[in-house]
């Protein structure tokens, strides 16, 4: 079925683009932050800093 947005195309398309951009930005920010934290934990582990439990700093499971 062809979708016709008529005179409101700008408003509808901009709304969906804004939602897509915001959701994509949130996903990217969370993914980048996760890898940043893991990298910092690995660097600390490599410098000899260990958790009191003795488990690996970057161990998440």
């Amino acid at each position: 079925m062809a979708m016709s947005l008529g005179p409101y195309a700008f408003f509808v398309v901009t709304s969906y683009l804004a939602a897509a951009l915001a959701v994509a930005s949130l996903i990217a920010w969370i993914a980048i932050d996760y890898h940043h934290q893991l990298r910092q934990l690995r660097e600390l582990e490599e410098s000899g800093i260990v958790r009191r439990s003795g488990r690996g700093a970057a161990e998440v499971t």
Partner: protein
Amino acid sequence: MTLIDLANPSKFLALTARVLPWLAGATAVLLAIGLYQSATAPDDYQQGATVKIMFIHVPNAWLSMFVWGVMSAAALGTLVWRHPLADVAAKAAAPIGASFTFLALVTGSLWGRPMWGTYWEWDARLTSVLILFLMYLGLMALWRAVEDPSRAARAAAVLTLVGAINLPIIKFSVDWWNTLHQPASVFRVGGPTLDRAFLSPLLVMALAFTLLFITLHLAAMRNEILRRRVRSLQMMQASQRAA
């Protein structure tokens, strides 16, 4: 694993590692169905094609309040039960809630221009949602401004609970005041006033965005736990160097 086990950050991390791929998959499937239904929904006899904006505006507006509700429950967890993950949950939810609120404001504005003839009107509903957005930003600034996480947690929890007063104001603003914004059309006494052709995509999109929130929230909580682990190890490293 019992519910009490989730108070342990390590066990929480193990759980998120298992459930996140499934949640992400379910979110993607529901979003695809919701977007298909939104694209193929008929035009409204009054709103025309702008009714499609409602399928993203309404879920984001609901979630903007729901996320603050989640943060309020977490604030109680911080202040009353001192649950170790309560502040983590609240802090991780704030940027996601702010994004949903921002989207509700932007999409509402884009719907308002062709339907009301204006992008913005200082009516009670719009203004109270704008205040909610500013409160999200204020809370995020507070967490960043206070270096000690436990002090920041208590201050943020108090501010969150005070801010929760805004939730009933947002919900009932359309009943209490004469607003340009229309009254509730889904969750109301007497049932929804929407036709099934619009109700179905709206509810599917609402469910998809709710799953999206749960997925992103768990992932952001995992990041926050790791950030606090980094901080405590860095402090341990600093004290070893000083010794």
